[in-house]
């Protein structure tokens, strides 16, 4: 028994090896291996456009049923996947060892996540979303209804298929090309937890939307979620640069809505093809770090006129500071060009705050005078821009006061004092001599 088992393990290892080699790294931030968990394997074909777009961009997709007992994202302390797509809104618990904690740990160790919920989303999905700062409507059968910006359709008349076009204003997240056609959305709405400062609405509902159970009658109570407070798709960029996308609709990934034409009610524009494909594709590019990933390297500082990095500065030294910032283009690192990168010379509060000038090749530099305060300072580069991974660099550097022999030896203004001391010395000798030997 032992021998085959060993052989199996070995085989497994060998099969994992190439995966390990091409896994997510600092040098190549784009994800490679993605685990897709499905409620139903039929989703594989009904959402094939989405998957094939991912595959064509070079991702290895591993499809599994959500309750497959063999699910494992981690082996021997190593994650086997770089990204996780949960298209399993109704799964109450995952098979295998994966649970809410497992998914969150996966994210907290720097991996990406796409979660799609739907009406009647399970507690599992709700909990994962809640941990990411997204609260789905508590009514399990509630969906987003919009009677003014619904998608005109012949079959559906309850206005639950929404044509949403309130996108997040960020080229980094949604790509340079403007999304013309509205995105078709059918599913549950959510709100953002105000305590969470990291979560953003990628696609908001219109002011006239609200969240309710379409089959029940409207009560006199106002709906718990309404208007622009409803987010349809939200994204989170965690502090460790892991990215999360949470959507209230599974259908928006489907081939049907990808291909469907769209006409927003009250609008005369009729589009051949909905914005879903462009929206989902561009967003997934961002989620899987094909875009908007920055790195800062070679943080350097030195005294003006020197090239060595000192271990300590003296107050009022002139120093030069430089840092290189690159952006991941999806295949290579290209210089990031921006005019708003700043450096702080910081000790409990910034003593110096300077905007760095760039040479267009990724090098940012400046020079300034160390303030007249000693202490343990930090060079801090805090670069947080919407869509980009946040750069938060700090390098500690002590600043010492003057040494006893670094002060100016003779000051012109002090000449009277020098005169006084020398005349005193001379006077001392003369006086003693006269007093002692004159009588």
């Amino acid at each position, binding site marked *: 028994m032992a021998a085959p088992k060993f052989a199996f393990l070995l085989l497994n290892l060998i099969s994992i090896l190439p995966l390990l080699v091409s896994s997510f790294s600092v040098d190549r931030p784009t994800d490679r291996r993605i685990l897709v968990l499905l409620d139903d394997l039929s989703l594989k074909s009904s959402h094939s456009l989405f998957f094939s777009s991912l595959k064509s961009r070079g991702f290895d997709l591993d499809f599994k049923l959500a309750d497959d007992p063999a699910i494992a994202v981690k082996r021997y302390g190593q994650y086997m996947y770089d990204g996780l797509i949960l298209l399993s809104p109704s799964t109450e618990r995952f098979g295998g060892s994966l649970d809410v904690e497992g998914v*969150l740990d996966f*994210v*907290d160790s720097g991996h990406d996540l796409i979660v799609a919920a739907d009406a009647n989303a399970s507690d599992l999905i709700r909990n994962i979303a809640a*941990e*990411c*700062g997204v609260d789905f409507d508590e009514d399990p059968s509630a969906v987003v209804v919009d009677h003014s910006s619904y998608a005109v359709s012949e079959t559906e008349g309850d206005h639950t298929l929404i044509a949403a076009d309130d996108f997040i204003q960020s080229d980094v997240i949604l790509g340079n090309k403007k999304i013309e056609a509205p995105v078709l959305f059918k599913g549950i709405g959510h709100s953002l937890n105000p*305590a*969470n*400062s*990291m979560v953003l609405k990628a696609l908001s509902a219109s002011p006239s939307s609200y969240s309710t159970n379409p089959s029940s009658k409207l009560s006199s109570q106002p709906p718990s979620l309404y208007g622009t407070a409803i987010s349809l798709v939200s994204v*989170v960029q*965690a*502090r*460790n640069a*892991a990215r*999360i996308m949470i959507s209230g609709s599974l259908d928006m990934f489907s081939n049907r809505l990808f291909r469907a034409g769209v006409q927003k009610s009250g609008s005369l524009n009729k589009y051949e093809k909905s914005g879903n494909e462009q929206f989902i594709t561009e967003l997934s590019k961002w989620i899987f770090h094909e875009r908007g990933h920055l790195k800062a390297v070679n943080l350097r500082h030195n005294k003006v006129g020197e090239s060595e990095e000192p271990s*300590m500065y003296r107050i009022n030294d002139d120093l030069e500071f430089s840092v290189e910032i690159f952006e991941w283009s999806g295949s290579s690192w290209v210089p990031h060009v921006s005019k708003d990168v700043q450096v702080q010379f910081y*000790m*409990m509060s910034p003593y110096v705050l300077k905007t760095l000038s760039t040479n267009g090749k990724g090098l940012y530099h400046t020079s300034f005078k160390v303030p007249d305060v*000693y*202490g*343990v*300072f*930090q060079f801090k580069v805090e670069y947080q821009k919407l869509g980009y991974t946040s750069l938060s660099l700090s390098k*500690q550097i*002590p600043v*010492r*006061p003057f*040494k*006893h*022999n670094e002060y100016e030896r003779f000051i012109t203004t002090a000449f009277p004092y020098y005169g006084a001391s020398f005349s*005193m*010395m001379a*006077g*001392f000798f003369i*006086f*003693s001599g006269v*007093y*002692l030997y004159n009588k």
Partner: protein
Amino acid sequence: MLFQLIQSTLPGKEKPGFDNLYFFVKKKQGVQTERRVIVVVGGTKIVVRGGKLVAVGICIPVEVISSLQNPNSLTVEIPNSDPIHQIRPMVAAKMEKSAADLPASPGLSSVLKSLKLKTKQQELLIRVSVLFLVYVLAFITRLFSILRYESMIHEFDPYFNYRVTQFLTQNGFYEFWNWFDYESWYPLGRIVGGTLYPGLMVTAAFIFWTLRFLRFAVHIREVCVLTAPFFAANTTIVAYFFGKELWDSGAGLVAAVLIAICPGYISRSVAGSYDNEGVAIFALLLTFYLFVKAVNTGSLAWALASAFGYFYMVSAWGGYVFIINLIPLYVLVLLITGRYSMRLYVAYNCMYVLGMLLAMQIRFVGFQHVQSGEHMAAMGVFFLIQFLPSHQYSRPTISRFYVVIIKAILTSSYLVQVFNFLDWVKYLLDDPKKFHTFLRFTVTSAVGLGAVALGVGTASGYISPWTGRFYSLLDPTYAKDHIPIIASVSEHQPTAWSSFMFDFHILLFLFPAGLYFCFKRLSDATIFIVMYGLTSMYFAGVMVRLILVATPAVCLISAIAVSATVKNLTQLVRSKSKPAPAGSSKGASNTKASSKGSLEQSMPFGRNGAIALLLGALYLLSRYVIHCTWVTSEAYSSPSIVLAARGAHGQRVIFDDYREAYFWLRQNTPPEAKVMSWWDYGYQITAMGNRTVIVDNNTWNNTHIATVGRAMSSYEDEAYEIIKSLDVDYVLVVFGGVTGYSSDDINKFLWMVRIGGGVFPVIKEPDYLVNGEYRVDKGGAPKMLNCLMYKLCYYRFGELTTEYGKPPGYDRARGVEIGNKDIKLEHLEEAFTTSNWIVRIYKVKPPNNRW
């Protein structure tokens, strides 16, 4: 008659009674065989004008009873009157000479000469060997801590001193002088070179370098550990000479023995107690000794030596302020009591001017010496004595050369020229009345000017006001109300009676007796020791740690009491057995003794009584020795970084948790990690853990400490904000609930609240108390049970059974079951807890990844 006036104790004044006896030693010049002492009894008139003896009342010729045994003192017997007074010439050098010149009584001269030389040698031998033994004893009695534990640095501050010394020996003096230490007081840093008294470190480094030069391969730690005992041993020598100067060599010997084992001094000078006080007490006593010597002799050389002693003291300890206030006070007292003399003038001026210039070379003192309020008394007295016309007091004994030098020094400082001007004016004005008017006018206007200058200086901030520490000395309640950081230190508390008893034992009773003897034989020197004793006793009552300063004075004064009493008694015993005049010549010098001897005739059992009293004194002294040894071995030899306790079966249990924790920090945390703890542990963390700390025992920045206090007394999420703003990576707390170690952070916690609340009013002490009571059990205040300090100390403590028969979570240090057993930490996580839970280290978690 060719008599030369050698000395008078107090010319120009008269006081009745025998206690204020004036005497003149007159010596016939050229005639070596004859020597006379003439005593002028009180009530007679002595008129001295212009330094010359004009008229003397009754002069009674007396015989020399004894002068050879102790050239410093003469016992004279006045015919026709009972009391015999001991007379002590001030000019020791002169007397020694004359004494040596003096042969014994003509008849037995040749026989006695050889005999006496022998006894003299014997006495010298005994004295030297006793001193040597005392020297060794003083050293070895301080080695208990090494035997009990190991050769290690003790407590808190010594670790800083040790670290600095290491730096000094590794990097040299200039690097040390300019050392900017960025590992403490993060992120402010500390200019170590400019904020410490370098005397101790330089001394240890010097010893280290010397030993290295002599090819002794010692580690710097051993040098540091043994520095304090070494200096304590040296102090005994100084005490001997001081006692000799004050009274006689017997008192000196007793003083040396007493100070060698006095617990009040041992508490700060055991091996490993590598603190400033270790060398400072030596320097203090040395300065005082040299100053008294300078006053007694009027010698510029001694005054110069005293200035250098003062310089060493300034370089070693902030307690130098005591010297620079006591000495002017002493001068003032001598002035008021009419004992002002040229000797004093020479000694004080030289000591003050040179001492001041030298002290200003210490970076930490610098211009404070002329600008701060604490030093103003010395300066005021300095200016004051320039007013007093010096001609009146000049004596032939003071060489003209000295006077010239002093004047030259004074003249060279321009201000003083004004005062010398007075002499010149007096020279011009023949009429004393005119001069007095002039003097009164000048003095009044100068004092007025001085007061105005002081007022303006203080108001403009040029002269800094007194520091809080100084205030708290004058007003013991000041610190409690205004500076909690000073009041929080246990060694700054007012002294309890028990600790006086503990530290002084029989000296406490001998002290008043010694004062009695000092008053009985008042001289410039005894006035000094009396003043030193009384002022330092007051300070010892205000602050526990200042018992240390009082100890030398108490030992010296007690030594006088012991020595005088024992001498009297032995003389009593001897005089009976040997009634021959040889006995009295041997007995030497004590008025009391001889008076007792004369009284004894009326007391038939005097001799037996004396023997009984001697035995009693012997018993008391041996009790003292036993007490001192016991205290040293039991109470003062604990390094406090390693704790010892008795186990259930009486065996010794060692808690080495501190070092365990610091070693863990050193090995397991990144080198740039910042550790937050209460300031008590700052020095140890930097020295042993080699990690950056936020605050440490150099409590120079109250706000920074208050910030830490605020973090410790806030709820966890509020504390987390503070912790993040200080870039803290680890939080360290000391907890004694498992071992019953009572000086832990929970017991110190109210001080954190007070200090934090002093700067940040959001922290309010009543929030942590229930009906004014500080509790950690179920009845504790809710804020108390949920503040960061409580959580960190008691995290998971509820699961632990500490004592058989008690519920889990039973705090042995406070003897209660804790009130909050279910502690959850959100932003911190336990990183390390030592084997006895004394030190607990928590890691600060990074902010939540997704929030």
